[in-house]
């Protein structure tokens, strides 16, 4: 590490830090504004609200039927996580362990849904789902959310499986392990940290996935984020504190899983897929 001591580089360093701090302050300000407003009796143009109350949470809970919405959200999210885990991890295992003709093409197919904007494939897929009668239903929402989730699991898991030495599996075979006990006693324990990381990330992403869910969600299959969108969209109808109370409920739901996920993954992994471990110099 090299530190220049000139006045110019000191100024530059200070300016860069100031920018970073400014950004973080504004970001925390946005989140704090939502929380403050949800606890305010009246808040118009002053630094802090006139008084504090928790009644908006009770009114938001009944107004937006949050019990039902949360129940549906968790059912959808856990089902998407489970299905994309089952489908994605098996596919990742095959792609990591075998070299077969057309493998590059298969990997490209798994990469594409993550590079195309969700609405580009979401609109035709939603049209199809409406035509077969799944539009607006619980299963329609699950299906459309699988499209980005399966490739995500595959791409996170491939490097993770590659780093497990295949000779461990071969040794287990030599000692007479059948396919089931190989899976349950060798692969599963070794894969568990990676699986937890991938599945928790899918969980967090699915809770926050707005665009695709919005396209097919009906009145009984709205997830929390879609309900929040509709509430903000019709913001003249309800008290802004009530909407913000719902936003806090959404934040708590998401952050709970995020904190859990961060125990297993590095924050950079949430944006970039897991980097392969670099060889030691």
């Amino acid at each position, binding site marked *: 590490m090299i530190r220049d001591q000139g006045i110019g580089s000191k100024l530059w360093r200070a300016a860069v*830090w100031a920018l970073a701090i400014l950004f973080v302050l504004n970001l925390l300000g*946005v989140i704090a504004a939502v929380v403050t407003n949800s606890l305010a009796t009246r808040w118009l143009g002053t630094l802090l609200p006139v008084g504090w109350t928790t009644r908006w949470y009770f009114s938001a809970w009944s107004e937006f039927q949050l019990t039902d919405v949360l129940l549906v959200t968790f059912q959808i999210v856990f089902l998407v996580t489970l299905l994309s885990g089952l489908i994605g991890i098996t596919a990742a295992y095959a792609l990591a362990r075998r070299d077969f003709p057309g493998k590059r093409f298969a990997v490209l197919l798994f990469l594409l849904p993550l590079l195309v904007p969700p609405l580009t494939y979401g609109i035709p897929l939603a049209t199809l789902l409406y035509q077969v009668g799944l539009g607006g239903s619980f299963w329609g929402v699950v299906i459309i959310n699988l499209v980005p989730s399966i490739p995500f699991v595959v791409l996170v898991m491939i490097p993770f499986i590659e780093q497990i030495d295949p000779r461990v599996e071969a040794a287990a075979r030599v000692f007479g392990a059948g396919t089931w006990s190989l899976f349950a006693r060798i692969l599963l324990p070794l894969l568990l940290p990676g699986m937890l990381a991938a599945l928790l990330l899918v969980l967090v992403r699915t809770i926050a996935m707005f665009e695709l869910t919005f396209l097919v969600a009906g009145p009984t299959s709205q997830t929390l984020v879609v309900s929040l969108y509709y509430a903000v969209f019709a913001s003249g109808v309800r008290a802004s504190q009530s909407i913000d109370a719902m936003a806090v409920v959404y934040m708590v739901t998401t952050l709970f899983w995020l904190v859990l996920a961060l125990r297993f993954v590095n924050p950079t992994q949430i944006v970039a897929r897991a980097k392969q471990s670099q060889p030691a110099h």
Partner: protein
Amino acid sequence: MTDAAFSAPGRSSAPERLSLKTRLAARGLDGTTLLVLPGLLAILALFVYPFVYGIVDSVTPETGAWYENYRRFFSEPFLYNTIAATLWLALPVTLVNLALAVPIAFRVRLMRRQRLLTTILVLPITLGTVLVAEGLLNFLGPRGWFNQALLFIGLIDGPLRLTNNYWGVFASLLITGFPFAFLLTLSYVSGIDPAIEQAAATLGANARRRFTRVFLPLLVPGLAVTFCLAFVQAFAVFPSAVLLGAPAGPTRVISIAAYSAAFEEYNHSLGSAIAIIMGVVQLAVVLAVLGLRGLFYRGPAGGTKG
């Protein structure tokens, strides 16, 4: 599983007697390979088929020739202006995000405890655009903390109008896009061997020259990928353009046009056509950026002898 590899040479004297199973296994096709099938089928059914369906749907309008939807899109200003509106939002935001991300990533790479900062920055990505839009409506509003702070410092005389226009959407794309660009850039910057910088400094390069002559060429491939991924996100802007922008005016982005054609006018053929145009425009920008990348240095960023 590996017995195919061992037995194949032994039987090679009589290759015609190899069973089909063994020959397939030698090329990497066996029971394990079949595990890829559920995933492939799901992607084919849920991504490739709808995509092809969308293309076919877009060229089979209810009335008129096969290109009717595209003709309509490019003849109505209300529709074709959405391309410019989207680019006018997405390109500047992506450039600003990258311009902020690079110097800050260079500072943060020297920090020992990055975890707190990276965790804070992951917040807006995980919370999503809807929540950020709701927060910004309050925070940037005429009576929000942002305007209060500026008035307090004395930078402005009256509150700025920052919501329900271009700048509201710009701010929301900055809040969700910058952390994304930053975390990607940070992972690329950390991948450059510090020994390279020390070598340049030993040879007498000052900070500016070390950046322009050493770091920047090594970073260009990573920055190109970061630009593309950040641009893809900004280009797909939808909820914040509705909630925080002026969806009938300057922030009527192309995803709003596609959504309203498909689900408000119930013209799924036109909706698919706009969705395809959206994909094509985005692909054109991504390819242009990746093409520019090809003009720069390609090679290892590690310090080891190859």
